[in-house]
């Protein structure tokens, strides 16, 4: 069975006179409210509620039915309208209740490269004993967003994609947490102006030139025990991983033998900003970023030299992250 197709972009939705107005309103609101500090529990003054377009249409339908019922003094029709109308009115409260008391715990995003999409993750916690259905989050002025149920005493993570085009810090956009529960007649929502930000690394150059290798690294003889080249066999010691045991040789020697591995001999390189002459700043940073990734992939020991700081040499993950961050935030 298929779910309903998403709404088609109609000519109507492209024509948005209210967009500028709502942007203006949002700016005013942000000025007044300031940054939303997390964690924050949604209270009744945070929550707005208005009918959806369908809600208005439904009201018109009910009013017409009621007019007909009044004119012909058709009491069953009136009873129908009044009961459905009262229920519809009560859904305002249900929608409000679906949000109130919810705690916005964290908003956080993993670093991405420029040109990728930053994925902010909004964590909502429900500390009450009732289920909260279909809680949605969306960027302010965007209609659609991620949707989750939040069971009692549980939390849920809502994703908010935001395209990251420039390196540096990407601030989380103004957010909306909203719900149209239960009937879609009313939309209850709250605004969030979080201070969270996402680190955006420089865009790595595609197909970069080869790394500027500088002979052997200073790390000395190869390290035993790890790596993927076979060094030799030795007798088994307690604690050796099972997959390292050379079963065939062990059978021949009547004793357990363990394969000893070694990493290939490390090479080293220096990624120097100043040597990349004749290039624009962003191009240099992009190339350096690409090289950092390449060197890391080849498990080289590398160091990054920027006019303001030097990092390395090293070849581990924290080093790579430090290099990428330095490049992302490099300020000429």
């Amino acid at each position, binding site marked *: *069975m298929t*779910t309903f197709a998403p709404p088609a972009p109609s000519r109507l939705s492209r024509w948005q006179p209210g967009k500028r107005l709502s942007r203006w309103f949002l700016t005013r609101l942000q000025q007044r409210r300031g940054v939303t500090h997390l*964690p924050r529990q949604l209270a009744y003054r945070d929550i707005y509620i208005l009918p959806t377009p369908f809600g208005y249409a439904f009201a018109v*339908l009910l009013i017409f039915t009621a007019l007909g019922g009044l004119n012909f003094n058709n009491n069953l029709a009136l009873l*129908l309208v009044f009961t*459905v109308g009262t229920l519809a009115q*009560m859904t305002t409260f249900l929608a409000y209740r679906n949000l109130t008391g919810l705690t916005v715990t964290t908003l956080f995003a993993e670093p991405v490269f420029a040109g990728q999409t930053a994925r902010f993750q909004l964590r909502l916690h429900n500390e009450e004993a009732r289920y909260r259905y279909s809680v949605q989050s969306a960027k302010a002025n965007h*209609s659609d967003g991620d*949707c989750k149920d939040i069971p009692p005493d549980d939390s849920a993570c809502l994703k908010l994609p935001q395209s990251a085009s420039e390196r540096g810090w990407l601030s989380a956009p103004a957010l909306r947490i909203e719900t149209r529960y239960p009937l879609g007649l009313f939309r209850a929502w709250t605004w969030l102006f979080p201070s969270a930000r996402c680190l955006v690394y420089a865009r790595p150059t595609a197909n970069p030139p080869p790394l500027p290798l500088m002979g052997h690294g200073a790390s000395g003889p190869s390290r035993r025990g790890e790596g993927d080249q076979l060094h030799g066999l030795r007798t088994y010691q307690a604690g050796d991983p099972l997959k390292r045991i050379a079963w065939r040789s062990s059978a021949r020697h009547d004793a357990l033998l363990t394969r000893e591995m070694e990493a290939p001999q490390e090479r080293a390189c220096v990624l120097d900003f100043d040597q990349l002459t004749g290039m624009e700043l962003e191009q240099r940073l992009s190339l350096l970023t690409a090289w950092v990734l390449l060197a890391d992939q080849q498990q080289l020991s590398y160091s990054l030299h920027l006019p303001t700081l030097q990092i390395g040499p090293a070849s581990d993950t924290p080093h790579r992250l430090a290099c990428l961050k330095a490049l992302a935030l490099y300020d000429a």
Partner: protein
Amino acid sequence: MSHWRQHPLPWLIATVALASLPQLMTMPAPLVLLTLSPMLWRGLAALRHWRPLPSLVRIALTFAGLAMLVLSYGNLLGRRAAVGLLTVMLAMKLLECFRARDARIVASLTLFLCSTQFLFSQGLPMVFYGIGVSCGALLSLALIERHDSWGRSGQTPPSGLGLRRELGFGSRLLLLAVPMALAVFLLFPRWGTPLWGLPEQSLDARSGLSTSMTPGSIQGLFMDDSPAFRARFEGSLPSREELYWRGPVMWNFDGRSWSFGGWMRGLERQTLPNADAAPYRYEVQMEPNERHWLFALDYPGLIPDKTRLTEDFQLLRQRRHAITSLFRYDMVSDPGFQDSPELSIVLRNAALQLPEQFNPRTRELVERWRAETPNDAALVRRVLAHFNQQPFRYTLNPPLLSRHSVDEFLFDTQAGFCEHYASTFTVMMRMAGIPARVVTGYQGGWYNELGNYLLVRQSDAHAWAEIWLPGVGWTRIDPTAAVAPSRVEDGPLDALNQRRHAFDFPWMRQIRNGFDILDRTWNQWVIGFDAARQSNLLGIIGIEKLQSRDLALLLAVVLLLGSVAVVPWLKRLGKRRERDALLRQWRRFIGRLADAGVPVSAALGPLEVGAAAASHLPTQAQAARQLAQEYLAQRYGDEAGDREALIQGLKKFRARTEKHGS
């Protein structure tokens, strides 16, 4: 993928099917097929992942549907036709129901379709129909909403708490909504007179006696067990022989059928029975039949509003005032009234008119009898004796009659229904030169002792004759009574020794008659509730002569008070009450602090709560901190303190907020 029960589409299709059910039962078979097939198609399309039909096909189908509707109903002005159009188009809309928007439109329109069905019937079964459709529509809307919310980010919603718990939740919600809805129902300002009426051509004249009588027309009604009207008598109840409810009076005969003379409409009755002296006073509650006749016992002494009384005592509603909804009127009747001791020449000629060259054998017989009998009364007795002594039968399935229908009936078939007897008798009287006319209406009724009212069903329809005798005036003669006296004494169903259909048993009829009191009560209190009843009801509690504006104000006040009562209920709905009294009070304490603007939440420890309260409420710092410390000691400490005192302390604590210079 969620279970089908969590998907809106099956529910939506089922709701559309349920909503169109009453209409389907009145539609011709091709239209029923046309209505059902889109539902089937949409269901299969969902199962088999079919694509939507091309728009050209859908447009073609729509026009085909329109053409079939026009062919079946003649035009689209009648109410049945208009509702048929709505039904067919709603079903067709399912064909393009692939977006949440369309699904919502369909779900809301099922409610509208449901309310249009109430135009045709507001009986008790319709209540269940209405409840079913509204539940289906609301459930569909809820599921559509859920799928739409999740679908926008490309997800399928997981199943929620399960249908049972959600239905439980929904029914509790309904329980809250119904009292509010009733308050609105009772207090909503009503219109004394409608803003717009129904055009005459949109009436369908569903049931009841018509303006003409052909052999078989009353027999059709005889199969119909729906109530025609109910009468509650003040004082004495007439005897069964007097229960002749007068309806359309037929003057014109064309050899085959009798018809109501349209000219009679303009002839108003001049002399009426004295209403104050009339022995029978009663109130009639008439079911809507979209026709113009009111029924009364001979001879009516009152003329209700917007009604005229014709020369031959027909109570006719004015144009544009056909009985389209439950109609109540008071009536008095005087059976002893002498109707027209003098007959004008025009009326006399009208009551003697007969087509030439019909029924020669009867004419011959009547002329022979006329010569043999000394006067009119003797002739009448002669004719009735003939009916009584010859082997005439009272039957539901009379043989078909052709051109000389009276001849054939009188000499050959000798089997018929009341209309045959009334028609034949009247023709014979006219042949003998006695002014005569056919009266149609109802005879008898079922007396409900519990409700103290007389129930008259469509199956009680009857036809009899009236002849005019000099000095006496118009006199009622019921030739059927001469053939089958039990027709008048026991009613038509018992006079026949045959069942009308497979489920027609006397005991079933008894039960149904007994339950009619429910229908009547429903009519009285729900369907018949109007501006007048509303003001009566408010008068009982001492509020009189309210304008619409005051009523609206009263309604607003009641709703406001209702909300005050309902909101705490709603707040508690679905929440689990904390069993531990101390923890409950602690949470409320934190809630009150948070309401007063202290930045606390249940996630904070007692000391943090105390500190936050102390810094934000300087005047109550000591008290708040003490409560927090006491709570900490009792919950996590070794020694048990005075638990009750702490509970009371937490309960009584109220944050006093004051504006400190900001």
